[in-house]
């Protein structure tokens, strides 16, 4: 039996992600009136906020004011101008069709589909303000795969035993049929 490393929470970007995810979870537990509904989706699904909980206000953002180097290979090449392309900064951990090419928007579902109340979370670096943000990849569900621009970002993508960071799961729980149409990339907070 190997002696496992147990350094969670010590260093590194992923650990930073974990801390924020835990914070989100606590807030959800404390605030949400939808707990009972989410509880039905299972323990790990409940770890993901169903809608934004962390408005980032100017004051708070300025207080942090970090200017950091790009933390990942994806971030080092990302652009901020065209959200219909795979290298758009928010898509660092996306897997699937961009809703921006399917009749939706970067945080909007195409007509005739529904956003999943649950999602996986990525941590993406914006090369323009040089901050990292928590991005919820909310799938739009109820129609078949739209098959326009298809992207696979794997920054911080973990296996399904860490579902909140996995982009293979059909994130359509609670939307009626779980047919996958496209994915949005919604800013839900900063990752600092």
């Amino acid at each position, binding site marked *: 039996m190997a002696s496992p490393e147990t350094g969670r929470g010590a260093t590194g970007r992923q650990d930073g992600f974990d801390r924020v995810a835990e914070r989100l979870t606590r807030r959800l537990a404390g605030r949400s009136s939808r707990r009972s509904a989410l509880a039905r989706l299972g323990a790990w699904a409940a770890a993901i906020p169903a809608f934004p909980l962390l408005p980032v206000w100017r004051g708070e953002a300025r207080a942090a004011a970090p200017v950091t180097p790009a933390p990942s290979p994806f971030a080092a090449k990302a652009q901020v101008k065209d959200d219909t392309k795979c290298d758009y900064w928010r898509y660092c951990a996306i897997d699937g069709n961009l809703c921006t090419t399917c009749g939706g928007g970067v945080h909007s*579902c*195409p*007509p005739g589909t*529904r956003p999943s109340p649950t999602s996986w979370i990525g941590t993406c670096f914006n090369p323009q303000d040089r901050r990292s943000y928590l991005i919820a990849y909310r799938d739009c569900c109820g129609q078949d795969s739209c098959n326009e621009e298809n992207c696979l970002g794997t920054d911080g993508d973990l296996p399904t035993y860490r579902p909140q960071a996995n982009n293979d799961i059909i994130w359509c729980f609670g939307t009626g049929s779980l047919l996958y149409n496209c994915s949005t990339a919604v800013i839900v907070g900063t990752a600092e």
Partner: protein
Amino acid sequence: MAAERRRGMIRALAAPLTLLGALSVLASGPAQAADPILQTEESDILKLQPGGPHRILVEDGVYRHSKDGRVYVVDTDSGKLLGMVQAAYNANVAADPAGRTFYVAETTWERGNRGKRHDMLVAYDPLTLEPTMDIDLPSRALVTPKKADLGVSADGHYVYVYDTSPTNSVHVVDTAKKAVVQTVDVPGCALVYPWGPSGFSSICGDGSLANVSLDASGKPSVTHSAPFFVPDRDPVFEHSPKIAASGHVWFVSFSGLVYDAVLGTDVRIGKPWSLQEAAGLKPASDARAPFDVTWRPGGWQLAAVRARDSHLFVLMHNGTFWTHKEPGTEVWEVDLKTRKLVRRIRLAAPSTLVGITQDAASRVFVTDEAGDLIVLDGTTGKTVRPIRKLGESLIFTVAPGE
């Protein structure tokens, strides 16, 4: 596009800031005290604004995976996909003439390839793409989709669904009652060409037409025309173009003859004339001389009519008889009144489909093997824009008011 509230838990932003907008604030200097930067966002669902004449429906049969057929809503001006709805297994789509809704007839089995079969007629709100009706049909014809397997009456009150099982018949759906109110047997005949508020014709195997008229209670009465063509020798295309409002159909035969028909209880069918003659060529041979190579019509949705100037757009290719499904290398624009060729439009790639919009700045649509939809100018024939890889098997288009 306007965001719309659909679910209690999803609130649309009253004045959503775009990311680039937010970033430009950031880039232009120190942010103002009250400005949020990269504001967190909420998920919403887009609702379409009413579309112009160039917003069309495109049926993708996805021949290799036809369970997953779909109908795309496309803005052919911007080239953007606006949304899609399911159109499962040799489905069909037809629009209400006034554009208030569109209908998809589709088929599933409960366990995919087994279990109970469902034949369904679904009505969609054209702005939300949400179903406004979703009913089961007794059955429907399963065949590679042709427009004339599904029709809507001129006033939008009836939808006609062609069926072949167990017998040839047409199910009449009352869209107000959201129910099948009548099934009309059309033995030996096929397809649905609607005319007026309560009539349709079917083509019969002997080259005649059966004309069905529904009374106020939906009860049908049927008349038959005399045969006007010889199916074994020179059949007319199922995708012969029509104007739903007037019941005017131009039946185009495999060899290239045009039969100008005004449908009704007492159908009027004109003497046929040759597309090739309209272009200054000899009329083409029929099945009795199949080896003759000349320009011939062919494809799937192989012809479209622009009502305002009575121009026919028809896909043509060079070939023998029995090449009626070969994609067209040219679109011939023909004046149906003068019976003269207006223009030959050479296509960059062969197309099985030609569609058209009815407005003054009309657009012509063709496709190719890659699943592109190519938008041409309806006046000049020049390419306006290609919409690359829109789908896989683009079968036909439905344009407003066609």
